[in-house]
């Protein structure tokens, strides 16, 4: 039996974009919720509450969009755990075994989680879905944003979506996806904790430092 080895799994662009996403999503959700339902009404016209909320929303919108693009670009240049195939376990036979195995573990049908170094199969598929939600959120957001100036860059880039889905339809989509992302975040933190305690591979720490404990026997 070989001892555990420490391996560098999540390279710095992966970790950096991850934490930018976390901060951006928190800020965008709080400010976005306020934009959708301004629950605080201020007594004085001297304040600028909605103004700041929207300002923050748009600043972090850029942060989030850039982070998304960087992460997608890194899918071409990163290590095997960061590239496209890592997010499509359904494309290989081996991957399918992991999908079924992980599913059985989550539903308490099996006691063992299939061994993986990178993402587990179900998580990887969830992330591909989340990447798509991110994209829809960014595109619908910039389409709405462009309206302040017809003919502006963002209006020309995404304004055509407005007649297609309707202005209100896009807003509703943008609003609902926030809730889907909040649901995802709850699941994501929980699963991280679960796998950290069960697999004992330091997955929670790995997103900070990049290293995971790998068992060479299992690989």
């Amino acid at each position, binding site marked *: 039996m070989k001892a555990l080895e420490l391996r560098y799994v999540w390279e710095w662009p992966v970790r950096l974009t991850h934490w930018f996403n976390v901060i951006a999503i928190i800020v965008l959700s709080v400010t976005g919720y306020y934009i959708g339902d301004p629950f605080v009404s201020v007594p004085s016209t001297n304040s600028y509450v909605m103004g700041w909320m929207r300002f923050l929303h748009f600043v972090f919108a850029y942060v989030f969009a850039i982070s998304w693009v960087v992460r997608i670009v890194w899918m071409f240049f990163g290590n095997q755990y960061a590239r496209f195939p890592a997010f499509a376990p359904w494309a290989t036979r081996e991957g399918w075994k992991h999908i079924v195995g992980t599913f059985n*573990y989550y539903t308490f049908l099996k006691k063992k989680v299939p061994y993986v170094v990178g993402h587990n199969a179900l998580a990887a598929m969830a992330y591909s879905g989340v990447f798509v939600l991110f994209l829809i959120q960014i595109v619908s957001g910039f389409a709405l944003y462009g309206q302040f100036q017809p003919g502006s860059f963002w209006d020309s880039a995404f304004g055509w979506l407005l007649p297609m889905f309707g202005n209100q339809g896009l807003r509703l989509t943008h609003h609902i996806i926030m809730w889907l992302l909040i649901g995802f975040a709850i699941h994501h933190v929980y699963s991280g904790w679960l796998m950290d305690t069960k697999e004992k591979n330091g997955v929670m720490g790995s997103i900070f430092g990049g290293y995971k404990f790998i*068992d060479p026997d299992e690989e």
Partner: protein
Amino acid sequence: MHDPERSLQEGSVSEEILQKWEARGVSRRDFLKFCSVMTASLALPASFMGQIAEAIEADNRPPVIWMEFQGCTGDSEAFLRANQPTAAELILDYLSVDYHETIMAAAGHQAEAAKHKTVEEYKGKYIAIVEGSIPMGAGGAYCTIAGDSALNIARKVCGNAAATIAVGSCSSYGGIPAAAPNPTGAVSVSEAVPGATVINLPGCPLNAENLTAAIVHFLTFKKLPATDQFGRPKFAYGKRIHDNCERRGHFDAGQYAEGFGDAGHRQGWCLYKLGCKGPETFHNCPTVRYNEGTSWPIQAGHGCIGCSEPQFWDTMTPFYRRLPQVPGFGIEATADKLGLGLAAATAVAFGAHGVASALRKGDETDTKVKKED
């Protein structure tokens, strides 16, 4: 005292024209005012005033045929609302309106004959104005005038016009008759007569100021003004209501009326939470206002309902809520109620899963020591 603005205006409009209008009972002041309002509405530099004054003075007045199909006559009302000589009336006097069901003196065969005559004599030269949508259902039987269907009339009259102006949301986009389930198969003029040169002036009703400006543009430049993706002239629909709204300060501050007649509403706070669709609607209501600049919905205390946007009756409802209902979840489901439910359900489900997992033993990966290197 020397007033530079005044001399600029008078200087650019020739004395001859001013005298002609004076002879007709329109004072120079009123005429200059009209020309400068038009120049401003069309977002043209003041130097165009003279050109505009000349264009509406030329002697070849284009005849106008005003047709009404599935509409409520609101646009005619909006155009005729004036109780004093105004900009719009100047234009009305100046144009020769050969056919307008609501205001013409002629009736029956006589009226139809006048219309046919204009179409024949001024083929390709007259202006067609359409109010109301055109029903395509039941072979056009839902709306007939003098035994002919609205569709046939529109094809003939708009098809032979120099330009067609669709006034109001019904002729521009189908409007209320076209709202789901659209029982008559109502469509807009540009859908009914695809070959026609159409400009849309939506609004429920349209703003007469914009109709006057569009006509003046056509007379001055011999072509219709530049339009946006929905066929609306940019000079009138190029800016969002929300971005020019007088309540915008309250929006940015965070001051919202929560109900009609509450303290915030009485103080003129933003109507966002009462479902205002100003952030979704492009129209010049805040700057031009209705009825000679008297007022407009948001000034009067009612949120915008987005009436100048395509299919507003279907897409902007519910009028008193910000967002539409989530489809498939019944009447009372708002996105936030569903979302909160979803987040709570996820938390509960994973919480339960967590408890079960914590109690479950023997599924851990065996503990090994870290390799010392």
